[in-house]
């Protein structure tokens, strides 16, 4: 298992990240990329991390994914700092011999990253107003569903 976990300000190169997973030879590579979505005058998100803890929390989430699915590789990159509309926020990727393992692991990684990693989003609007994003109950439901699921499989 080859895991790459990173909390960083810089953008990441999706092509090279997925090429790394493809090269591991599992045959199936799934990914999910989250991008800042515009609307309602939003200009950017500001992502705040907990230096020291965020990386460790993502590593724990990745380790749990490795326990649940037969992965040959895994990628979890989360940016912090000010990210204008259209910028990438997060990339999760998983490589496996089994396509459903790869896809489910990605769903798990993003669900838990949203609810179990110390990261906070602030919306920055045209005109200068700001708003801290509230947690969404459906994200907690999605994350909790993995608790009650068996070793494998989507809840």
């Amino acid at each position, binding site marked *: 298992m080859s895991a790459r976990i990173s909390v960083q300000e810089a953008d990441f190169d999706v092509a090279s990240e997925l090429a790394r997973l493809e090269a591991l030879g599992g045959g199936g590579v799934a990914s999910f990329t989250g991008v800042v979505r515009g609307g309602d005058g939003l200009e950017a998100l500001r992502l705040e991390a*907990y230096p020291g*803890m965020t990386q460790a929390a993502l590593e724990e989430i990745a380790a749990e994914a490795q326990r649940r699915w037969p992965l040959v590789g895994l990628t979890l990159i989360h940016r912090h700092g000010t990210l204008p509309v259209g910028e990438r*926020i*997060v990339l999760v990727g998983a490589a496996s011999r089994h396509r459903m393992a790869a896809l489910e692991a990605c769903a798990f990684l993003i669900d838990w*990253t949203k609810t*179990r990693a110390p*990261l*906070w989003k602030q919306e920055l609007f045209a005109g200068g107003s700001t708003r*801290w994003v509230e947690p969404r109950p459906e*994200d907690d439901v999605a994350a909790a569903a993995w608790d009650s699921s068996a070793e494998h499989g989507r809840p």
Partner: protein
Amino acid sequence: MAVHLLYFAWVREAIGRDGETIDLPGKVDTVAALVRWLAARGGGYAEALAEPARLRCAVDQSFASLATPIAGAREIALFPPVTGG
């Protein structure tokens, strides 16, 4: 005992600083007690910490609950529910 406190997101904004090192009296023995003790300072502290149910915390960089004991802790972080991803 000296402990390093960290504040994130709107907790940080309301308190007006991202952290501080303080000497805690021994009776402040849980995260909940710490929150009450800090809120009693008034001002931004009172504002940020008025509703403990809206707060989350980590003790020595592990997620914890308000009931978690803090004796011996070196770093305690107070923050809102996380919203990354």
